């Protein structure tokens, strides 16, 4: 394996609110090589969007990044000054936030919005270069050059989402983070948008993190799946391993709850409810809902340890076996 393009090391994010302190990310570590597609799944409140924001250094008060490193192409983003970070945001890491298509300014032409994005990050680029960049980006997301002169309301939802992807890749970033890029779109458009991201990614050779809770989309799109729960990574495996042989009990429950064509009318949820980040149980955060919980699970959180086959799991079921 070549040098990872993105390395996240022991990332910690805490929110300070009226209800007290909430650890939204608790020691998350992962690495991603160029061309890899990682799916980050978890229930709402599991910290998956926080992770994207933390990588972009866009955590707003009352939240704070309290520790850890985000290394992209050998540069630690957490050590950059605010100006350097601004430049890194589009040129190293692109972020397509949830509902991005609704964030386009309705009274400004698409082209002008794309130019603004470049200007904000590389003010010294010439106008002709910028325009060429924009056209190229539009073409790579399968939009006609005429879109450049259009207003957002002239475009359909899927087209707007592709414009947002085009803006994201203007400066050829090494990492693209897409947070639920298709949550408001119907299945056909969703497939189209995902295929666009796929093509753009292989063209740029970038690494992609797809955040979402739709396991179906993950099965269709990503290479690796990371399951988050209460601000921690529970398991990271190849998509095949995750669907055919999940290891962590939470991942197992998640996979078992999925509907498919062969189990009609069979509904299985995950018993219990997700813990509140303000009052996490001690030890492994999943232990109150886990049928295999042991004594050690109640007192000490398990480490995120490697298993054979390049997987990582945070569960004592496997670490003990590994030790024995």
């Amino acid at each position, binding site marked *: 394996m070549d040098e990872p393009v993105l390395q996240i090391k022991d990332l910690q994010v805490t929110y300070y609110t009226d209800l007290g302190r909430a650890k939204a990310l608790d020691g998350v570590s992962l690495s991603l090589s160029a061309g890899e597609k990682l799916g980050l799944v978890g229930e*709402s409140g599991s910290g998956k969007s926080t992770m994207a924001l933390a990588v972009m250094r866009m955590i707003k008060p009352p939240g704070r990044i309290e520790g850890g490193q985000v290394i992209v192409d050998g540069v630690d983003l957490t050590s950059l000054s605010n100006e350097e970070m601004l430049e890194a945001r589009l040129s190293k890491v692109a972020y397509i936030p949830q509902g991005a298509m609704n964030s386009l300014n309705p009274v400004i032409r698409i082209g002008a919005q794309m130019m603004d994005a470049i200007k904000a990050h590389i003010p010294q680029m010439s106008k002709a270069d910028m325009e060429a960049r924009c056209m190229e980006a539009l073409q790579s997301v399968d939009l006609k050059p005429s879109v450049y002169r259009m207003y957002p309301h002239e475009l359909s939802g*899927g087209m707007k989402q592709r414009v947002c992807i085009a803006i994201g890749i203007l400066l050829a970033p090494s990492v693209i983070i897409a947070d639920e890029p298709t949550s408001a779109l119907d299945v056909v458009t969703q497939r189209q948008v995902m295929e666009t991201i796929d093509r753009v990614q292989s063209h740029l050779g970038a690494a992609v993190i797809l955040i979402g*809770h739709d396991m*179906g989309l993950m099965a269709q799109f990503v290479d690796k799946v990371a399951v988050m729960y209460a601000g921690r990574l529970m398991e990271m495996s190849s998509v095949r391993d995750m669907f055919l042989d999940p290891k962590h009990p939470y991942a197992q429950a998640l996979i078992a709850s999925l509907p498919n064509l062969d189990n009609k*009318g069979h509904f*299985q949820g995950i018993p219990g409810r997700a813990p509140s980040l303000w009052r996490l149980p001690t030890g492994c955060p999943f232990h109150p809902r886990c049928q295999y919980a042991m004594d050690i699970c109640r007192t000490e959180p398990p480490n995120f340890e490697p298993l054979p086959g390049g997987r990582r799991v945070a569960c004592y079921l496997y670490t003990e076996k590994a030790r024995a």
Partner: protein
Amino acid sequence: MTPLLEFKNVTKTYSRGLLNKSFTTALNNLSLTLEEDEPTILTVAGESGSGKTTLAMLMLGFLPPTSGQILYKGKDISKLKGDDRTTFRREVQAVFQDPFAVFNPFYTVDHLLTVPIRRFKLARNKKEARQRMDESLQAVGLQPEDVLGRYPHQLSGGQRQRINVARALILRPKVLVADEPVSMVDASLRASILQTLQTLQRDYGVSIVYITHDLTTAYHISKSIIVLYRGNVMEAGDVDTVIKDPQHPYTRLLIDSIPWPDIHRQWGSTGIKVQESEIHDTATGCKFAARCPAVMDICKTPPPLYRLSSHQAASCFLYRQQSEIEPEKLSELLPA
């Protein structure tokens, strides 16, 4: 015997613009019946703009149809008075998509349950009211002490959505319109809500109209399905047949694009004709023609429904050698 709820050639058009009026047909000539003694789960599927939400609003009496009639127990719902009106209001209920927006942020979640009890005089005193609340909460799998007295933001999305179902249940409805009830709920909680809906149909005899764009859950929960595209029925029939063996090119595309959470079932290779912008089509023919891979000249005229089997029909000229079926007889195709 009079059906419970009946749509008779219902059309709904919206107009916009004052001088240059343009009309959009949200729902075109739909006929549908729900029988009281055969509670079923019927899926109405379609993407945004298909008219599925308009159908829900019409069914709840929130919108008047432009033409056609909607009858409840044989009476036009726009002309209901007095007791009939109260009965209709109580017996046709809904669960909406957003499990947060349905709560008034000013009140605790109790408000959602006490209002219908008070308004429809379902209890003689406080104790009885509390009893009814407890019953309905338990029926949807909630412990009353876990949720009562709390504010909506203190509960999880799944709990909130189940309280919504409990609100509808408290009224002992005959018809429940479920408009995307799980699309904003975490995947792990969807199962429990769908199960609750199924229990309502089976044990409480409620007919459920499940409105969704998600064919995965539709397949799992319902018995029959109507696929809408721009206000027109594309395909209808038994849910197993339609999903496993779709016939209309639109349904095929739709089903081929479902992201099944199954790595053995990858997205198909059907090419997608991109819908390049919000076309205001004035075309009189098949609404899907512009995107259809199998488009023919005849598609410029509106296709009737062709019967493919006893429980499947598609509105597409590919099947013009089959027998036509009148739109009024749509419900015959839908198994209860």
